[in-house]
């Protein structure tokens, strides 16, 4: 679906502050895939995702959307922006319209959809994000923080992107708000077959929703694979200030204590199963 090859991007080129934010980075996501993207602050995550819809142009390398280089001559950047929907960190600060409905309609309108189609997209996006239809006429500034966040995500979903990219969509939300947002994103993926790229600092979120994980460090991916493939390399993760989920750390400690438990469990449910399996055998 979307593929980034050998991307290099340099901030402040030819200044004393020149920094390579991406240094030969590869990344790809297939239709229907839920890809997690992790790495410490400054590892290049945000720079990478801004390349995925052409907000930044790489100094070298290319980005292929359904096989087509988005920067080749004659390519339509507008189409790319609609196909790859980017939700920034703290997107609620970008709400601007008078009503929730108008704010969500901004994208579909810009795409040139008719009023009827736009209304349909708004209704659908509000449903995907669990916003009651009665909120459409409210000012977004009268909503709670969690609701505003969902309005902002709905605004991107309303363009029905084939790739939905989210930069820490759960930051600053309470636990139930976090769970809800992730569930809505999973629903969108399940019902539309879209690819999702999720940037997060939460290993627990990754364990819950992601199919694959890419770990960025110092401007390039250092690990990429299934949850098992990535979380089995704990020493690499701790080496860059990350770690496996808390329940996995408990299982690893149980193994160290001499209990023969499978430490390849990353969610609470799987960890419970792993411990019970020891008793049952």
């Amino acid at each position, binding site marked *: 679906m979307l593929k980034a090859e050998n991307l290099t991007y340099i901030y402040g080129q030819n200044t004393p502050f020149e920094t390579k934010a991406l240094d030969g980075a590869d990344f790809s996501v297939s239709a229907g895939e839920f890809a997690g993207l992790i790495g*410490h602050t400054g590892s290049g995550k945000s720079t990478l995702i801004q390349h995925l819809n052409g907000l930044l142009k790489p100094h070298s390398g290319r980005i292929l959307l359904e096989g087509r280089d988005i920067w080749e001559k004659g390519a339509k950047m507008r189409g790319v922006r609609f196909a790859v929907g980017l939700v920034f960190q703290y997107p609620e600060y970008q709400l601007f319209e008078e009503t929730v409905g108008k704010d969500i309609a901004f994208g579909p309108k810009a795409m040139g959809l008719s009023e009827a189609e736009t209304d349909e997209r708004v209704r659908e996006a509000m449903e995907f994000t669990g916003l009651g239809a009665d909120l459409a006429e409210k000012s977004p500034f009268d909503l709670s923080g969690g609701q505003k966040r969902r309005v902002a995500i709905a605004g991107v979903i309303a363009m029905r992107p084939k790739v939905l990219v989210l930069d820490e969509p759960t930051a600053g939300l309470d636990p139930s708000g976090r769970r809800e947002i992730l569930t809505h994103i999973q629903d969108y993926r399940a019902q539309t077959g879209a690819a999702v790229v999720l940037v997060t600092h939460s290993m627990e979120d990754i364990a819950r929703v992601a199919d694959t994980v890419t770990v960025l460090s110092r401007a390039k991916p250092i690990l990429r694979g299934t949850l098992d493939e990535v979380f089995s390399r704990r020493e690499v993760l701790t080496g860059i200030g990350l770690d496996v989920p808390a329940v996995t750390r408990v299982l690893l400690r149980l193994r160290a204590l001499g209990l023969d438990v499978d430490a390849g469990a990353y969610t609470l449910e799987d960890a419970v199963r792993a411990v019970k399996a020891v008793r049952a055998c």
Partner: protein
Amino acid sequence: MDEIIRFEHVSYSYPTEVAAADKDGAASGSSEDRSVTPAPALNGVSLAVRRGETVALLGHNGSGKSTLVKMLNGMLTPDTGTVTVCGMDTGGDPLKIRQQVGLVFQNPDNQIVATVVDEDVAFALENLGVPPAEIRERVDAALRDVGMSEYKSHAPHRLSGGQKQRVAIAGVLAMNPTVLALDEPTAMLDPKGRVEVMETVRRLNAEKGVTVVMVTHHMNEAALFDRVVVMDKGAVALDGSPREVFRRAEELQALGLTVPQTVALAQALGLDAAPLTEEECADAIYHAYKGEPHC
């Protein structure tokens, strides 16, 4: 003088124009028509914090946590009821109260004013007219206390999130506050930055006896405090040690919260325990299971 903070029947409502926006610290909108009459942000809160105590404030978004924190240094004052800090009513001289209570917020980028780290830490002292030699001494001490001495000549915007947040803490520490209040200081940080901030806060409490009140959405952080206070609808819903509060998983869930993963795991396995660390959790499971025959 054991008691350092006291809330007595404190209620507060935001003025309607800014009510919706200010709760999140977001910029206020341009819409003229505001038909909402918000529920009170605080509704009859009574709470006492002892000197040297560390208190984690939990609660879903909009439960009143941030409002409570802003009451601690008189940034907000109650509509009814009283807030007393170090024996002073917070409605009194703001300068005196703010020297006792240092506030640190979520976004480090919004709290740093100078272009060099030590100048930033010196900002408040300079404004208070503290003599330069003493400023130097207090700034150096504050940076040492947060482990940032070697960065004192750096530009703040080139630091990591965790480092910036520690500079922000040093800025309030330079005032020698009795109380350090932090509103979600780890929300925007990566795992390493979170650990840095938590370790700094705990060390300041242990070594300097600073009383700490900290808002967080991370249950594993709350588990490290002496006491957990859970807010709901502007009132205190649960109050106790982390072990007491996190045993009440169902109530917490109803309040939009969870328990730390270690507690959830132990409880899902039917253990009568609320382990707060991974070590405790593994030990509890191990002891429950080692009696069992396994192959």
